Structures are given as C-alpha cells and as structure tokens.
C-alpha cells in the first residue's frame, strides 16, 4: 500500500517537474513553437523518460557483487541487457552505414531512409539465415554428440564450472549447447519458414480465388475458415498433434511432416482472410474489369493483375505470420509434441534447461543456459517485427 503511495507521489512530482521544465523552456528559448505548443502530457512524458534513463544509469553503476560476496543477479542481468542493447545499436548503425555506401543506387537509397530498428532487423535476419544455411560448417560439434562433462556453464571459465571446449556450456546429458543453438537455427527456423510458405500458398491462392470468383465458392471457403478459426489455434494444434503422433508411430520424421501440415493449415486461415480482403479491394478496380472484358482467364487475373498489387500487405503479413508459426513450433516443442529429439530445437532446449532458471538469484551464469535458447527465439521475433513495421510504414506512404 505504501509502495503504491510512493509511486503516486513520484508521478505527481514528475508532473510538476514537467510543468516546470516546459515553463523554463518557454522562457529560455523566447517562446519557441516547440515549447510554446507543447501539451503538459508531452512535457510529462519527456520528464518521465528522463527519470527512467537516470534511474537506469544509477542502477548500472551499482556493485555487481553484494556485501556478502555473492553476485547480485539483478545488476548482472541488467549489465548483460545494456551491453547487448549497445552492441546491437552499434552493429545496426555500422550495417546501415555499409548499406548506404555499398550496393546499387536503389539499395543505397533504401538504406538512407531506413530507421535503425529496421537495419537491426535486417542484419539479424541475414545472420540467422546465414547460420541456418551453413550450420553444418559453423557448428564445432554435431547436434547429437554427447560429451563427458554435463551441465557446463557458459563462458568457458573452468574456475566457475565452465569448459573452454564448450564456450556456451553443455546440457544435462553433455551435448554442446553452441552446436545445438546453431543447428536449432536450421531446424526451427527452416521448418517455420517452410510451414509459413505452405500456409501462404494455400491461404493466399484460395483467398484470391474467393475474391475473384465470389458467389458460393467464397461462401463455402469463408465458412470453413470461420469454423477453423473458431477453435483456439494452439489447443487445436495440440489435439491434432496428439492424433498425429499416434499415426506416426515410431517414425519421428513423419511426425515433423504432420506438424508442418497441421500448422500450415491452421495458419492459412488467417492468410486466407487477409488475401480475400486485399483481393476484394483490388477486384473492384477498373483495370480488373478491363481484363475480364478482354476475356482473360482466371490464372492471368489472379497472378498477373491482382498479385502484383497485393505484395506489400502480403509480405508484411508473411513476416508476422512467420513469427507466429515459429513461436507455435517452439511452443509445441516445449510441450513435447513438436520437433522430436535428437534434432536440436530451441523450444525443446528451453524445456530441457528450464529448471536452471531457478538458480537465477544465486548464479546468473546457470540461469543463462535456458535464456540463450529463449533469447534466440525472442531476437528473431523482434527483428522480423522491426522489418515488418518498416515495410508497412513504407507501403502506407506515411512520410513523417
């Protein structure tokens, strides 16, 4: 209760500070439009932001070890986060700089207008794609190889339980985590990409077909999609996967194929809705009518007239849909029905190492074991979203 009062009091003080800052700004700059037309809420926002930044800096310079000599987990994690953030920002900046000076005139222009977030997103996606494609070359060991030392901590420092041979440590049965993370990129990202592609082929072509032909076909397809969408998707996928695992029997690869098909079908319903809505807007255009009156066939109408005009929203949806599929696969693997061992997969890795998160308060390094795989999932999701945001903003024609 008192904590709540403290927070409330702090906010009130910040509000007063905001008013004061705006007043001082007005006086100091001789009533420049920036300060003159600034609403109090905006001034409050600036002050709140400044307060949070200052608090962050203060916290960053707190001692890493507590008075008892044990590491302070909060400060340690905060250090990691800040370092990661700064590193990511620098990498994105350098990448954008590179893009502005290397490449064709078109790509240079693209990079000149690119926000830092989008540059970061593209960089991460390129790195992931590279890792996934060259996993076999990059990984120091095989994904199924088992070593003597189990539960080696990341960092490779033997004095705190690491092993220089395994820079990111080993799991409970002694598999090299770095190799498994790299192979996980191939398995998880590759399968998610294939699944999204199938979902788009299925949902996109049916959606455009419904938009072009309309009538009873549209009704039938749309109602089927409605029914499929009415069932919560993760639970539906779990249910179907349980049935599929019975069908697959001992053949584990068959289960992966079933999973791809199941998730693709479930996600294609969302793609269908989008493609149909976008297609409907395009079908009413006069140039479609002109093509129909010319006597063009359905294939020409859909692929030559409609599709080129629907690429921007579909591409943006592809990015988002990829994230959802990717997270669904990770979730299914975490629950044990997704990608099957011994194939390395980030979702399975999080599940296998999950109990180490309990050690976070005493040993941040131990807790880092599950966080690495979870972070790999989060990073890609964030990166794809950054790129999609940027693409949507570009295609919507917003200038400021």
């Amino acid at each position, binding site marked *: 209760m008192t904590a709540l009062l403290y927070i409330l009091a702090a906010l009130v003080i910040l509000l007063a500070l905001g008013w004061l800052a705006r007043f001082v700004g007005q006086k100091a700059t001789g009533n420049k439009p920036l300060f003159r037309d600034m609403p109090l809420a905006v001034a409050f926002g600036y002050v709140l932001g400044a307060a949070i930044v200052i608090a962050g800096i203060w916290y960053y310079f707190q001692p890493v070890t507590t008075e008892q000599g044990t590491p302070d987990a909060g400060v340690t994690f905060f250090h990691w986060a800040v370092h990661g953030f700064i590193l990511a920002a620098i990498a994105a900046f350098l990448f954008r700089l590179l893009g502005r000076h290397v490449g064709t005139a078109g790509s240079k222009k693209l990079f000149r207008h690119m926000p830092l977030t989008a540059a970061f997103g593209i960089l991460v996606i390129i790195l992931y794609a590279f890792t996934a494609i060259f996993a076999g070359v990059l990984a120091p060991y095989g994904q199924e190889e088992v070593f003597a030392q189990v539960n080696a901590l990341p960092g490779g420092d033997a004095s705190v339980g690491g092993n220089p041979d395994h820079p990111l440590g080993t799991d409970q049965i002694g598999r090299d985590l770095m190799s498994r993370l790299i192979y996980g990129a191939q398995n998880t990202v590759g399968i998610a990409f294939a699944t999204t592609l199938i979902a788009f082929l299925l949902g996109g072509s049916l959606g455009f077909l419904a938009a072009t032909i309309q009538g009873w076909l549209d009704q039938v397809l749309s109602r089927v999609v409605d029914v499929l969408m009415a069932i919560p998707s993760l639970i539906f996928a779990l249910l179907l996967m349980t049935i599929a695992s019975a069908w697959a029997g001992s053949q584990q690869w068959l289960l992966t194929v079933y999973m791809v098909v199941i998730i693709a079908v479930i996600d294609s319903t969302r793609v269908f809705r989008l493609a149909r809505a976008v297609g409907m807007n395009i079908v009413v255009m006069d*140039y479609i009518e002109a093509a*129909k*009156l010319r006597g063009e066939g359905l294939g020409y109408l859909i692929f030559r007239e409609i599709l080129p*005009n629907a690429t921007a929203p579909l591409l943006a949806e592809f990015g988002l849909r990829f994230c959802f599929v990717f997270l669904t696969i990770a979730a299914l693997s975490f629950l044990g029905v997704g990608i099957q061992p011994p194939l390395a997969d980030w979702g399975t890795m999080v599940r296998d190492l999950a109990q180490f998160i309990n050690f976070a308060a005493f040993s941040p390094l131990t807790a880092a074991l599950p966080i690495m795989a979870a972070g790999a999932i989060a990073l890609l999701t964030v990166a794809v979203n950054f790129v999609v945001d940027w693409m949507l903003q570009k295609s919507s024609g917003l200038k*400021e």
Partner: protein
Amino acid sequence: MTDSDKGQPLVEIRDLRIEGRSDEDWNPIIKGVDLTLHKGEVLGLIGESGAGKSTLGLAAMGFARDGVRISGGSVMFDGIDLLAASAETKRKLVGKRIAYVAQSAAASFNPAHKLIDQHAEAPINHGTATKAEAEQDGMELYRRLRLPNPDEIGFRYPHQVSGGQLQRAMTAMAMSCRPDLIIFDEPTTALDVTTQIEVLAAIRDVVEQFGTAAIYITHDLAVVAQMADRIKVLLRGEEVEENETREMLSNPKEEYTRSLWAVRSFERPEKPPVPTDATPVVSVQNVTAAYGKVQVLHDVSFDIHAGRTVAVVGESGSGKSTTARVITGLLPPKAGQVELDGQILPPDYRKRSKEQLRQVQMIYQMADTALNPRKTIGEIIGRPVQFYMGLTGRKKRDRVADLLDQIELPAETYLDRLPSELSGGQKQRIGIARALAAEPKFIICDEVTSALDQLVAEGILRLLARLQDELNLAYMFITHDLATVKAIADEVVVMKDGEVMEQGSKAQMFTPPHHPYTDLLLSSVPEMDPDWLTNLLAERGRDNIGDAASDKID
C-alpha cells in the same frame, strides 16, 4: 469601392512560399504569392490541378498538409500573424472565425454522427452557444440554405441525405459560428449540374446575408464568374493575374488566362445523316435491367452507327453507366437485347467469343484505377496486342510503338514508365491506346474527360475526334457535361431515372423546343456571364431550379 474605404484587410498574404516533399527533396508548390481579402469580399482562385489552389487556400488558415511546409512569407488574419501564432491561438480562430468547406462533403462528414451533432460541435467547443441554441441555429441555417424539412433533416445521418444536400449542410456547418472567412475548396465539383446550381445559389445567398468573406477555389470559370467579386488566376504556384470579375472576363491580360477562356471553342462539323438502311454497329433494343430487385433501366433503345458519336447525358443515377454495363455484358439485361453489326450478342460477357469481346472496348473515367499501377505502359498496351492479335517479340513492340504514336506520346520515353509517373491526361491517353490496341469497331467512353482539367480535356476530345475520323470508330460517349456534348457528339440521348427522355441529332437537341428535362439540364449549365445565375433565378424563381424542378418532371 476604393481600398481606403474598405479599411484594414481581413486576410493579407505576402510573398508566401510553400514547399512539398517528394521522396528526398523539397519542391516549391507556391512560389511567392500575395493575396489580399477584405471583409465581405469573395475571391475566386482558379487554375489547373497542381496549380496550388488548395494549398494556398489552406495556407490562408495558417495550415499546411502533411509533407508540406510553409517556407517563407507571412499570413496575417485580422492583424494576427498565423504563421507565428501559437497552437492555442489558432485553435481559437479555426472553426470560429475561419471555416473550411471541403470538396467532398460525403468524405468529410463523420458517418457515425448525426448532421446536427456535427454542426453543433464547433459552437459548443468554442463556447459561443449551448447545444440547444446551436441546434436551433442549425435549423435556421438549413432553412436559409433551402434544405428540405429544415427542422428534421439535421437528425439524419450523412448517408441518409443526397450529395447536394450534404454539401449545403456542410456550408451550414461552416457558418455555425458566423465566421469572418470561409474557404470553399471546389464545393460543387463532385455534383451534377442541376444540383450544383442549387448549392451555388445557396452559398451566394448566405455569404451575402452574413457579410462573410470567402475564398472560392475552383477550376470551373463559369462557376467562379457567378460567385466571386475578384478572380485570381494561378499557374504552377505563381500568380498569373488578378482583377475584378467583370474586367477579368471581358478583358483578360495574360496569354494563359486567354487560353483558359477560349478552351470551349472546339466543335466538330456536322456529319451527313446516316442512310436509313445502314446496319448500326451497336443497337440497344428495349433493354430493361436491374441490380437485384431494383430496376435501373426501363425499355432503353438507341442505335450507334459506324464513325458516329452518340452522347448519353443525364445526372448521376440516371442509368448511363448501367447501359454501358449492359452493352459490355457485365450486367445481363432482364429483357431486351444488344446487337453488334446486326448479330445478337450473348447477354453475359463470359459467353461472348474473343472476337465479340475485341469489337467492344471501354475507356474509363478514372485513369488511375483503370491502369494497373504495377505494370509498365508497354505491358499495359502490349497485353491486348498479344492477346487478340497474337503478336509477340519484335512485332508486338512495333505495334505498341505505333499505338503510342497514335496517341501522340513518344514511345521511347514512355514504354518503360509506370502509370504513377504520368500526368492525368497522359494516363487517359494510355487508356485510349489500350482500347485501340484491340482494333475495335466500337468504344464506350465513360466520362473520360470529367476528371481532367479543361485544357487537357480538350486535347483528349480532339484526339478522340481524330481517331474516329481515321479509323471510322463508333463512340458511345457517357457524360454529364453538356459542353463536351457540344464539342464531340453527333447524336444525343438524354436519360433520366433509367429511361430515355429524348434522343436525336445534336442540332435538334440544342434548338428549342426541348423536352422539359432537357431544358432543365441545358439551363443549369453555368455560363461565363457573371449575371447568369442572377438572371436565371429572377427568370425561374428559386423553386424551379435544381432537384426541386427535376422532381416535378415525370
């Protein structure tokens, strides 16, 4: 009146410079324009699209659209510098002392609120009236603007009233705080002539009664001649000239202004009558058509002969475009038939042969939506060439170059461009080339010039006339603009509510006696004479113009 007895000007714009952003650069839109407006005065701003009329009009409120910035000059409103004023000061002015009437009232009203609630918003927010007072005043204004059922119409939603009524309701809304200045941005451009005249009369009355100053933006000279005390002509962001309306009309000084004035001079020579035994290219026979249960065409019949232009005129909703849809086969008729060269066409376009489809081509009103934005000009024109003629490779390229040559665009510059890189007139020419590529006998032109500036529109009409003479094409020319009819038609069909009111040769149609509806249409077209509206109102009375008169004819 001399300047001295008008006192302090209400709006004073000096050396205004406005820039707009395209891609990475800022391009000038307004290049140093001065404007002075006194209390109670109406200034007409005219010019082609892209001349900066609307941008200047908005700048008079101290406002610039997104992606546009005011880079220099000053805007003074009644002694207040709008460019330096705080957001607070501007908020107090806009809506209360300065109001704006947009081109499309249908798009500017919020469809989720009743008219009167939107009307009362400004007075309540500015604290000039209570809700009850504002509503009472709204009804009074509706009465003055001669809206039907003024006490009741405000309680409807925007979709429940017609376009002309909505435009008047918007004018009433602008008047709600009795502003000193109203900016009218093409308020009648989207309306039919018969509706336009009502709105014009209403706006003029209200502006006179309250002594409001106004800036009236339009591209239609005849309209501005009725409304404005003075006219300012803009060209590409620069002022061409400014003068009193009568002086400007009778004695334009600049070459550009004169060319604007002379634009309606194009008229084709009359052709000899068609021999009675000739087979028409297209014959519409007793067509009755409906959308679902709503019948929109009743027993429509007319013939179109080779090398002739039949203009189909009428207000929006009269069934002009529906007739075109029946001919193209998009809307199979309930009864009646369409013949091509004496042969009955299958009612549904899907049942027609490639050859039949090729003979009937269409040119659309909005070139923006008629050309696929993702295809180059070469692809757009090349497709029908390949599809119908089976030409590929070098032969196809040559044919496309020929077609571009016919529409007077150099092939090498335009072949690889996208539609977005062309001007409105050029896009319309591409639409014509696509129709020609099929080598048809008959082309339907659906309001092809109504979205274009007058000078550009005239160029398109001349092009169509030349192509007709060269290729012996038959045109069905759908339009609501009688000046266009005068320019290009050989025969005229007048439609109202899905029925043919009158048809005959152009000469017959433009000489009395007329059918009452034709008479109403003809008399509603504004003329360049500044006294035209005054005379017309004196001659006919307020109740015999526009929709009120149109409803009496049946």
